[in-house]
């Protein structure tokens, strides 16, 4: 079994799954119907991608764990998502700030992954890239409209951006897994995504009349660890809810 690729597929699968789940919590509670539909669409896209990544992880592992076993029967310390995506939704601006930082990274990452030397990875990434291009356009547009809206919305977005910002650094963290896979041409070094990301983020933030927080504020070691299974207190509650039926009715099929 290819341990590094298994780990990487879990990271991607868990990250998209957890973010999809967070977005789905908005269902029925959004600020405008059109927004709610769009957000639900993003959530559904991410869920579809999560299923592909988790299925790939299960295939690589070869121990019979399918997407559901991986999603529903691992506790928080076995989850490999980035910390950014597990944070509580907060208000709509908090959700969109998180989404914007994530989508931008996701886009540049999938762009690279779609040229992966591993065909399975390339295929999942290519399919996801089309969706994510839309997600990234949409969240950038929202940052601008909310940042350059009213005084109140401006202040909320600046605070939201700072709240999410500290978790952005982890997205560019390389470790043994990414280094090994990068050596094989399967994934890019994540650090190499940072300049593109910063450049795009800076442009949108400026257009939104917001201030970019200092990059070093996204590099504190305390706000990283998700991809190694060291999460924040938010994830446990999310999983307790998400996994309830599979845990309470073991072996049932649905």
């Amino acid at each position, binding site marked *: 079994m290819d341990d590094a690729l298994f780990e990487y597929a879990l990271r991607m699968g868990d990250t998209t*799954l957890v973010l999809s789940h967070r977005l789905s919590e908005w269902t029925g*509670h959004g600020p405008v119907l059109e927004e709610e539909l769009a957000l639900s669409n993003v959530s*559904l896209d991410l869920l579809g991608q999560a*299923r592909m990544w988790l299925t790939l992880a299960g295939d690589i592992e070869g121990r019979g764990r399918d997407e559901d076993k991986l999603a*529903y029967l691992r506790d928080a310390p076995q989850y490999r998502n980035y910390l950014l995506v597990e944070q509580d939704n907060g208000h709509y601006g908090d959700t969109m700030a998180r989404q914007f930082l994530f989508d931008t990274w996701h886009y540049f990452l999938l762009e690279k992954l779609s040229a992966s030397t591993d065909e399975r990875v390339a295929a999942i990434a290519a399919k996801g890239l089309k969706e994510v291009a839309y997600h990234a356009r949409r969240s950038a547009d929202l940052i601008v*409209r909310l940042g350059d*809206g009213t005084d109140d*919305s401006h202040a909320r977005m600046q605070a939201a951006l700072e709240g999410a910002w500290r978790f952005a650094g982890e997205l560019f963290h390389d470790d043994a897994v990414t280094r090994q896979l990068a050596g094989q041409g399967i994934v890019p070094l994540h650090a190499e995504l940072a300049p593109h990301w910063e450049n795009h983020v800076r442009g949108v933030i400026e257009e939104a009349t917001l201030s970019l927080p200092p990059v070093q504020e996204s590099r504190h070691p305390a706000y990283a660890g998700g991809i190694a299974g060291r999460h924040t207190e938010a994830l446990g509650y999310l999983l307790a809810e*998400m996994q309830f039926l599979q845990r309470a009715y073991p072996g049932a099929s649905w």
Partner: protein
Amino acid sequence: SGPEQAFQQRVDDGVRIEPKDWMPQAYRKTLVRQISQHAHSEIVGMLPEGNWLTRAPTLKRKAILQAKIQDEAGHGLYLYSAAETLGVSREEMVDDLLSGKAKYSTIFNYPTLTWADIGMIGWLVDGSAIINQIPLCRCSYGPYARAMVRVCKEESFHQRQGYDLLIQMCRHGTPEQKAMCQDALNRWWWPSLMMFGPPDAASTNSAQSMQWRIKLFSNDELRQKMVDQSVPQAEYLGLTVPDPDLKWNEARGHYDFGEIDWDEFHAVIKGNGPCNRERLQARRDAHEAGAWVREAFSAHAAKQAARRKVA
């Protein structure tokens, strides 16, 4: 009067009424009420299903449920648009919902207590909705009829998915899962039959609506259709319909069924269903919490417009 007669003649001839056409005030008012109520039902209806979205038991079921709820939001949008063609704004309609002035289907004031309820909503609630709505694809008001065509197509799909979920739980599941379905049927059966409204004898505005062809069958006719369609489906699932009086009537060629508890129906209409408060509160909270977002959108759009003018 002349225009009223001409209008009725067009309706009788099966000509579609379009937004710019002359129409009686009462026709317009009745339609606004009916279409906006329908739109509100789609929106409020997202809540009981959304209640299980974060707890769906498999990723596939989660995706199906999310897509379904998305469709409902979409239906809400078309229907609000259809109502807007009659000269009422979405904002006014939403205000009426939030103030409690406008109604939505009583069925969404029932709670979803287990995953089986998601199946029941698909099978029975969407099932009733389709029976109600299919005739409306031929109703006299064009925008409403066209919205209904699209809605009905998607609803049938939802109904099949709901029934499929129940087949899985009842025919391929554990005894616990089947018991969960029976409990859900016990709770959803009667409220689903109430969705067709009061019995014909007590139904007040039906005659006029029928004449205008914005109602094409009586409540009791549609309800009978629902019972006839659902009983064999319940049998296939191995579930017992919670009605001791239910019996095939060979002479009528229909199922006879028991008396509906209309007190319950009226209690729910008056605000005392299990979730009336929670549903309305959820919509109000969303509206209030989203006010700053809507204000920001307007402010930004105004700035953009001003910039374009200058440029």
